[in-house]
């Protein structure tokens, strides 16, 4: 399945699964990365920084490493 970290800018999708170690998964869920939630990948912060994800009305900056834990489905038009 496709990872959030592999998505191009402007990608619309929904979260399919959050995988990884306990701490990471829980922290991601605390921030609203729950299964079924739609998101939009807005882009990347300057200097190769974190990814900017729009999720449930808020923009969240997330490192590539954490974005690799998030498996996604493309959103149907």
């Amino acid at each position, binding site marked *: 399945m496709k990872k959030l970290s592999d998505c191009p800018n402007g990608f619309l999708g929904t979260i399919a699964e959050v995988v990884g*170690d306990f*701490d*990471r998964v*829980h*922290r*991601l*869920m*605390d*921030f*609203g990365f*729950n299964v079924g939630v739609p998101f939009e990948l*807005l*882009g990347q*912060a*300057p*200097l*190769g*920084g*974190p990814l*900017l994800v*729009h*999720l*449930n*009305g*808020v*923009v*969240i*900056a*997330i*490192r590539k490493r*954490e974005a690799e834990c998030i498996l996604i489905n493309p959103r149907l038009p």
Partner: protein
Amino acid sequence: MYFNQPSFALIGPPNTGKTSLFNQLTGSHSRTVNYPGSTVDYLVGESQPKFGIPIKIIDTPGIYTLRPGSLDEEVTINFLERKSSVLVLENIIICLDITQYERHLPLVLQILSYGWPAIVALTMSDLLPKECVPDYLRSELEKRLGVPVVEVDGRARVGVEKLFEKMKTLSNSSFQVELSVPLNREEALFQAKKIIKELAQLKHVNSELQKNRTRLDQWVLHAYLGPIIFFLIMGSFFTAVFWLASPVMELIDQLVGGLGFLIHQNVHPKWVAEILADGVLTSFGAVILFVPQIFILFFGLNLLEDSGYLARAATLVDRPLSIVGLSGKAFVPLLSGFACAVPAIMAARTLRSSRERWVTVFILPLLSCSARIPVYTLLLSFLFFGDSPWKPGVYLALIYIGSMVIGALAAGILNWLLSSSKKVQSSLNKRSQTNHPRRFSAENIFLMELPVYRWPQWKSVFNGSFRRSGIYIKKAGPVIFCLAMFIWLGTHFPRGKENMSETQAMQSSYLGQLGQHMEPVFKPLGVDWRVGVGLLSAFAAREVFVSALAVVFDVTLKDDEAAVRGPLLKAMKEAQFSNGERIFTRASIIGLIVYFMFALQCSSTSAIAGKEMNSWKFAVLQFFVLNILAYVSASAVVHFL
């Protein structure tokens, strides 16, 4: 004074306007309270008289979850679970950001399921698009959550009275609460989904708001413009901290000098006047001298935080900081470190990863704090005596950049040491396990919510800055004061005879004798015992070095403090070792600069580091490592130049 008063705690996720609401309810009458066993503060205040009966209001650190990830989150959760011994919860107000209710509803349901008497305050309703009717959402939520829901706007003061009426009613009907086990996350998510589905009308709210938000971020987080904006904002921030504060600092200096003069004129006998004016008053001056800078620093930080830029700045520097093993979260403590390490160390408590926190607190004293400026200014103006005035400025900037580079290198090395050594790693984990029942992650996860841009609220920015400066005075003040007193006593006792000059008295004082005994120690630094006494005095506060030098080199201080530097520079030029060699050469001056760049001379920093890390071993280790590093590198510089 708070006895028998009903109390309400404000609880909710970060950025939901808890503190705004707190300010509206209490006016500006509040105090920070220290949570025992840790150092996290929370705010307690009494409701404004205009509301009628007095109610105690508590502001708590924001939480994302009932599973604490950092020290400050743990405080709130301990309140909720009745694990806090000082503060017993009675009622709670849950703040729910109406524009993000989908995301925060599960947590609200979890908090409600404890069974506390609760009111839900819907905040940020002013951000909703016009076609939305918050009142509809309010009544629907009230039905489904089973507790009073009030729409408030902490900024525009709308709904605060209504909220207070509900609080009165609720506190009158208060009874002994039986706590139940909260919902687990999955259940809460499920229930929240159900509610959200029924309120589907609000679906479009988020996307509408979002457009507004991303428009500004296109500039602020632009690949090239972003860093430029960052440097412009940070540049003006630093300029403000130093240039705005300097007239106020001068004023404080003159006030202290003038008061001392008055005491000398009016108080007899002479030794009482000396103790009062030169000892007590000057030590007190050492404490408050840096308050203007610290206030401006906090003011700027609050301003950046309130407007929403701080989260963007942290996001922007996350990648560069990750090279040395830190994250964007460390940005605020590091930034504060350039004004004063004491509030900076306190700011490090928001760091989730125990390793990142350890490294950040350890390297903070390496960043050039403002107390070093008088020292650098003196040394640089000696080095460039008679040269064009821009030269010292350029070198001062170089010293700052150098301190950043050194700090970054140190962070990288420490991180490498900590991660490569299994033993340290496990002891770090064990320490965090024993100190905190729930282990905080040693792993570095950077997740940052970028809140909506808003105009800062001046009043709350002001209040917040006053409060935080107050914490500095309370925490660092006594330590700085006592040490300044101690050093002063050391340099003035035993008292010399009447006909002795100040320099001779200094020579025969305890600290003067110690300095002479320690002369061989100062030798590698290329200085004699007199400068050594200055270095020893600098352990009270770094800037004391300058005034101590003035005393040991017998520069007569007139009432006009500002004129010290000229005669002092002259005295330094003439200063010689007993064999006739000059003390202050290019090598020894650069050596001193290097020494001040590395050395941890600030006793309040050590005190705070020990308290905050909950480990005196840490403070002692930091003290010795940094001072030995300073000594060795300064000696090396002197040797090779």
